């Protein structure tokens, strides 16, 4: 081999090695779940980064998150440079930061470094109250009417540990309608506490009346399963959601078949658009379930949130299921506590130790046509808007509509 040939080979190899160094360097990012913040800018950047990397809806959210950073950074710099911010200023800044985000579970809680007070920002609150049918929840006023309604028997109520109510209404042809209302999805944990003796048995009285003695064992020997009951009503108006553990014994036990709801996915990496594959979202019926001949009616309103909305999706998928009421809140994508360690999305931070906390979803849920209901809510099969005048006159128009549907089929 002559010298010039060797030179050519070395030149080619040199060029190859030169190009091999052309990969971009990795970016260093802090873990937003565990970051101590000593300045307003630090707090802002940590929260911005946590949402940037872990927020579930960047594939469809219309907020320009990079523009939010550019717009808001000078505001927080100014707080640092002038030695602090008032609670009102900080509150306003965080509300501006998260304004328009789709996630209706989300809220941001930040400690004001100067005053030590918390400020909150909740993007759903920029949307839900502006719906033309929006109203506050009138849970207490509505349950107060229950025992006064025509033909009601077997009225039961729980206690302040678990706000729950049950009753029996007359149905058609001498049959009955079993009714249950609860304020939150905490039945399973409450029933466990009762079985451990740490809560009085009366706490789950209405649940046992409706489902049977087991409660977490699905429908056993409760009124819902009796042969003279033609239909059941689960009233989730004003129900703010809670634990997913309740879904199967309380809702899926109302049908004998597996319920196909749609698909779910989660984040799978720190990139905004790093998603897992879609997996089927179906729930087996509970071993102790209704026989499938009874009508199942779910009552919802604009204050039905999270697990209440999932329940509405499930009941809409049941052959004998009907959802009546108003379009729900729109927080349809669930989350699990501690999920950030598993999925690098969802809830992050800790208010007590770190001075910030962000509550946000980590499971995307879509229906069988891949349509998302996040930020929209579940549209009922039969719409019946809340009537404040009726309530003032001692009537619950939505519950009356549900009873009418069961009795008449219309």
């Amino acid at each position: 081999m002559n010298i010039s040939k060797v030179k050519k080979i070395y030149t080619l190899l040199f060029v190859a090695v030169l190009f091999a160094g052309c990969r971009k360097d990795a970016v260093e990012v802090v873990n937003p779940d565990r970051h101590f913040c000593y300045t307003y800018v630090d707090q802002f950047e940590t929260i911005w980064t946590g949402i940037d990397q872990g927020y579930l809806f960047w594939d469809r959210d219309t907020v320009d998150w990079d523009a939010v950073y550019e717009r808001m950074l000078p505001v927080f710099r100014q707080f640092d440079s002038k030695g602090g911010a008032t609670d009102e200023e900080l509150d306003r800044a965080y509300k501006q930061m998260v304004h328009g985000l789709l996630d209706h579970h989300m809220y941001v809680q930040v400690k004001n470094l100067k005053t030590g007070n918390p400020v909150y920002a909740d993007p759903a609150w920029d949307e839900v109250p502006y719906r033309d049918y929006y109203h506050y929840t009138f849970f207490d006023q509505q349950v107060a009417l229950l025992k006064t309604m025509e033909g009601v028997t077997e009225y039961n109520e729980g206690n302040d540990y678990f706000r729950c109510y049950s009753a029996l209404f007359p149905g058609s042809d001498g049959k009955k309608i079993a009714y249950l209302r609860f304020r939150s999805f905490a039945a399973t944990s409450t029933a466990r506490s009762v079985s451990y003796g740490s809560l009085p048995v009366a706490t789950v009285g209405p649940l046992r009346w409706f489902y049977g003695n087991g409660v977490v064992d699905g429908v056993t020997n409760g009124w819902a399963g009796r042969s003279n009951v033609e239909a059941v009503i689960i009233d989730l108006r004003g129900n703010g959601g809670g634990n997913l553990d309740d879904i199967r014994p309380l809702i899926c036990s109302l049908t004998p078949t597996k319920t196909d709801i749609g698909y779910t996915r989660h984040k799978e990496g720190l990139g905004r658009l790093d998603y897992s594959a879609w997996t089927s979202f179906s729930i087996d019926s509970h071993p102790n379930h209704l026989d499938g001949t009874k009508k199942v009616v779910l009552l919802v309103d604009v204050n039905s949130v999270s697990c209440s909305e999932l329940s509405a999706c499930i009941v809409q998928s049941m052959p004998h299921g009907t959802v009546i009421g108003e379009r729900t809140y729109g927080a349809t994508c669930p989350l699990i506590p501690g999920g950030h360690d598993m999925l690098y999305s969802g809830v992050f931070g800790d208010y007590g130790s770190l001075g910030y906390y962000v509550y946000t979803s980590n499971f995307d849920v879509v229906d069988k046509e891949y349509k998302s209901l996040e930020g929209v809510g579940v549209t009922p099969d039969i719409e019946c808007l809340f009537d404040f005048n009726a309530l003032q006159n001692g009537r619950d128009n939505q519950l009356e509509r549900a009873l009418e549907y069961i009795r008449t089929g219309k």
Partner: protein
Amino acid sequence: MFLAFACVCLAASSQKSDGTFRSTMFPADPIGRWNVGLFGGIDRNTHVVDVGYATDMKYTPMGGATAGLSAGYHPVGWLTLRADLAWVQKNYRLDRDSYYVSFMYTESTNDYILLPLAAELSFGRTFRVVAHVGGYVGYWLSGKREGQSLSVSYLISGNDEDTFFEEDYAFDETRDNRLDAGLDFGVGMRLAVAKRFDVSVDMHWYYGLTDVQKSYMTNLNPRYNTTRALQFGIAYWLGKGNEKKNKGE
């Protein structure tokens, strides 16, 4: 495997029927000639990504297949300008090793079409050892994902049936950079097994220089593919040799 193949080829083809050895196994007159061929083989791809604080996400290499067409032109005896049209799989696996989600995994199977262009340098006379250096451009044709994930169904009912998935990868125009380019370098051997036929074995390193994601967010860690391929091929020499030029070589 590489060496074994070389030895077998060498032994099988270098001995004549009368027991003597051929004096020239590479065409004696390669200058100014083209060869065209087919190749196939196996590969192993490494998905290079910095997972940051997501430390339980472990990307591991996965095997795949490769096949294609090749063409080479010999302007001088020791140099071949080579162009391939290659189908190359760039597969990888993601595992999770934290306690609660250790069952989760994703196997990504990705099909690419590549056009490598390389300068191939030959060493030796009767038995050719080659080294090539060049680059490639390519396109990410399709992908599949299968594995096991965490599903809401599992959280609610404990039934893991819905945690398994298998899907065609849906490209996202905002996220996915389907254009691929990088370096292609490696080594190989050539052996003439008949008057116009060579068999070859090549080791390729496809060193991706393009991020498989577009730059769609500020703090985005890049992802690259590095693929090693072992290719077995056969090539056919076109035309006749130029005796005059070859004498000079």
